[in-house]
């Protein structure tokens, strides 16, 4: 490695790879994040692709991006603003320049800045840097296309394949920028194209040439230095929220010794869970790709009746369709987990964007008094944990559980310390097998108020379930007035009893903080980072983040009571704040809401909290 003009020491860095949908930016970003993770940084990533399958080339709506945030200490979000932007065409520059940190570095493929592309991107002059007033950034105007062609000119590759390798050139250059080894990416290339040696060779060459190009331009380009993070020892892998959910259920199935059954219908951004579990025939998962969302949940309810660990996965509009059937599971008191990966609504809304606007739907989107447990994951990797716990609660308490994630954590990835299932809690399945004298289908566990699970095939426990109101004792159909009242109350109490089996709400920060920030679900990373930074900056701010929504943790009231100022931050119009108000009207909640299909930014959160502190 040669001498560098300037090395910028950083705690953490955000890099964004962006280009046209066809430019391979998702792969580039993924490879970079792997290398960083293996190097020992903590990372968080987020892909951001167009709503269209193949949006028009060269336009802003066709820009595909992949953001990697990595650092020397723990990293909780993919980052709001980036230090380094790789822009493979003018549209990528146009779309992303507003997300640059002051003083950052932009690597631009200047070859792509021809008139046609500039116009498509909406530039009016031939100098996008000047036009967008980017003079204060370090601009690396790299002729990436030319250099790639140059690099491969003697290899006998067709032009299309050559252009396809541009992304490896850019990646090589970024590796140089951060002084990272090429080994992992080399291995990947060799494995992936094993059957096409020429392509392997080309990609490896371009990667190195990109790296070396860094050496050539080092006199004028700053490079970055980020130490490895001090993270827990062990074996890691990258995990996205959607795969984490799938795997959480696999773990629960293994721990409970139940067969995993998924009934589902594809829908963005939840489809990947279905896809992952469809591939898990090796672990005996039965996946039923249903004709619609209703059949998705109904096959799962049937499988639950049969004694499987039954789940269904969907996103907002699909959850709306499942409402009636969820009510059946409530009445029949059968275990089932409904995963809702929230996206922008209402209606078809913004299907590829994130939002938290299905909370009320999860709580109340059914006829009658129809209580279910609602749990929300708050990061890509803890989606594994909450899928596991959702399954555990469903089975042990014989209740439907709605697990909420969102497009942001579902698509984002984080390094995941591979767990040993032996360390995870047992899941005790309330099967009945031996004859109990006064058994009846609605006999209840006194502690949980849940009934037992007698599954077809078990001799002596033949019984009938159904959606009509049931006698609290015999389980037979009952139209009795007082029995109905009792059952309505019992179903609610049963759900409330779950509170005795979940952890208490933890507060990050001091008991006497001047402001309690409250959040739930996928906003954790941003809220935590904002609160953490403010704390380091000397403010007394605390964070209470909820994963258990219904029932709320037992100490919720006690926590809220401690703080004079509470602000509930959500990516909706205030649904959780309203829910807290219903439950604890004695406290005042300020609301901070954003409904833009985008996560919060740490900066806007901090600004807002500071204003609140000063109020």
């Amino acid at each position, binding site marked *: 490695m040669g001498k560098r003009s300037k090395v910028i020491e950083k705690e953490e860095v955000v890099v964004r790879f962006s280009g046209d949908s066809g430019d391979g930016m998702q792969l580039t970003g993924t490879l970079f994040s792997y290398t960083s993770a293996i190097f020992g940084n903590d990372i968080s990533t987020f892909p951001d692709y167009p709503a269209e399958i193949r949006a028009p080339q060269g336009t802003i709506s066709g820009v595909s991006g992949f953001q990697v945030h990595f650092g020397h200490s723990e990293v909780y979000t993919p980052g709001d603003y980036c230090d380094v932007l790789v822009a493979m065409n003018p549209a990528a520059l146009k779309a992303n320049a507003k997300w640059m940190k002051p003083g950052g570095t932009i690597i631009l493929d200047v070859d792509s800045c021809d008139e046609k592309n500039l116009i498509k991107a909406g530039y009016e002059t031939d100098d996008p840097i000047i036009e967008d007033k980017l003079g204060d950034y370090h601009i690396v105007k790299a002729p990436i296309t030319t250099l790639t062609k140059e690099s491969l000119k003697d290899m006998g590759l067709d032009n299309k394949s050559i252009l396809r390798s541009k992304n490896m050139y850019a990646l090589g250059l970024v590796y140089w920028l951060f002084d990272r080894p090429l080994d992992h990416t080399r291995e990947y290339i060799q494995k992936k194209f094993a059957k096409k040696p020429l392509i392997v060779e080309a990609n490896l060459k371009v990667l190195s040439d990109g790296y070396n190009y860094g050496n050539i331009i080092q006199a004028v380009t700053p490079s970055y230095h980020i130490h490895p993070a001090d993270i827990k020892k062990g074996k890691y892998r990258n995990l996205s929220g959607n795969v984490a959910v799938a795997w959480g259920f*696999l773990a629960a199935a293994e721990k409970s010794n139940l067969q995993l059954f998924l009934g589902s219908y594809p829908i963005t951004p939840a489809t990947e869970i279905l896809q992952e579990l469809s591939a898990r025939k090796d672990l005996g998962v039965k996946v039923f790709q*249903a004709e619609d969302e209703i059949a998705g949940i109904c096959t799962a309810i*049937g499988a639950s009746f*049969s004694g499987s660990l039954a789940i269904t996965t969907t996103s907002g509009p699909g959850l709306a369709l499942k409402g009636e059937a969820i009510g059946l599971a409530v009445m029949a008191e059968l275990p089932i987990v409904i995963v809702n990966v929230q996206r922008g609504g209402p209606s078809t809304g913004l299907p590829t964007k994130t939002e938290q606007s299905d909370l009320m739907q999860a709580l109340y989107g059914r006829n009658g008094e129809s209580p279910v447990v609602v749990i929300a994951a708050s990061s890509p990797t803890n989606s594994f944990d909450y899928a596991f716990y959702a399954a555990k609660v469903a089975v042990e308490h014989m209740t439907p559980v709605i697990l909420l994630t969102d497009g942001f954590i579902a698509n984002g990835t984080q390094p995941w310390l591979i767990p040993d299932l032996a360390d995870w809690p047992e899941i005790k399945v309330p099967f009945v097998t031996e004859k109990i004298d006064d058994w009846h289908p609605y006999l209840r566990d006194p502690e949980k108020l849940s009934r037992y699970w007698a599954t077809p*095939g078990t001799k002596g426990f033949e019984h009938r379930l159904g959606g009509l109101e049931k006698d609290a004792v015999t389980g037979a159909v009952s139209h009795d007035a007082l029995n109905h009242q009792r059952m309505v109350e019992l179903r609610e109490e049963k759900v409330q009893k779950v509170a005795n089996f979940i952890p208490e709400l933890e507060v990050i920060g001091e008991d006497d903080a001047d402001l309690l920030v409250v959040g739930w679900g996928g906003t954790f990373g941003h809220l935590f980072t904002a609160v953490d930074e403010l704390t380091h900056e000397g403010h007394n701010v605390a964070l209470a983040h909820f994963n258990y929504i219904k029932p709320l943790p037992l100490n919720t009231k006690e926590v809220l009571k401690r703080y004079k100022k509470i602000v509930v931050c959500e990516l909706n119009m205030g649904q959780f704040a309203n829910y807290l108000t219903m439950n604890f009207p004695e406290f005042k909640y300020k609301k901070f809401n954003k409904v833009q299909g985008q996560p919060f930014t740490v900066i806007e959160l901090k600004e807002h909290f500071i204003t609140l502190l000063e109020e």
Partner: protein
Amino acid sequence: MSVESQIKFTDFKSDQSVKWCPGCGDHAILNSVQKAMANLGYSKEEVAVISGIGCSSRFPYYMETYGFHTIHGRGSAIASGVKVANPRLKVWQITGDGDALAIGGNHFIHTIRRNVDLNVILFNNQIYGLTKGQYSPTSKRGFISKTSPFGTVESPFRPGELCIGARGHFFARCIDKDLKHSVEMMEEAAAHEGTSIIEILQNCVIYNDKTHNAITDKAHSEDRTIKLEHGKPMIFGKDRNKGLVLDGLNLKVETIGQNGITEADILIHDAHCEDTTLHLKLADMEYPDYPVALGVIRAVKAPVYDQCVESQLNDVQEVSKIKSFKDLVHSGDTWDVE
């Protein structure tokens, strides 16, 4: 026969009092199902009876087996889940013309297409009974009901035709009050692997009384229906002297002994033939042009969804290196932090 076959049909009666209207055809069907299950030597715990919502769908409550009275129209989907999750169970679905063909139409056709091993008993009374008398998707054009006071302007589905249109492999038809024949049909459906649809012409005494009478009435029944049996000639009539012959691509009723027709000219019923042509024609026959076909009209072997799911699992598991959660999470790209 196994010890299990000692079971009596009364063993399948639950302790719930049966609440259908006196005279409703459902009572007879309940008896037929219980008889068939006893004949089949089922044991109670291996049976799951799944229904949707409707008068007919209250059925599971009266069966001393596992049962699930679910929600309107979703019986097929729920039964599919029950069966796929545990293929060892005998899964019987009870449904009505509204439950199966109105709100449940999509699950009905998809279950048939997938060929999940269910025995589906479709109570066709051409009316919504439980909601007190609105026309259904099988009500005849012009039918007068509470929601069609001037007659419907819709053509009905013909369940057999729809079943075959959805690539169905088993379709049979019988009459509620003909217990013996109904029991036979149920035994055949049970023997068939894959989705078996039995359409039972059921009388709703209250809201659509006698709708099937033209053909089910004892006085005429033999002349106006034909009981098909695989491998047997298609002969019918009180005097067993009428039969079906092929006339070009059409079926035609002929009288044996007239126009030089002999028994040898009469078509032989082949329920097992893959081709749907004749099955469809038989299923679609309507009185008065034709006798209405009863019996097993179509019973053709085909891959069964729940079995395929199991065997694909087995195949993959045999070759896969991933045997446990642990294998999975340690496969692929991982790294160590030391």
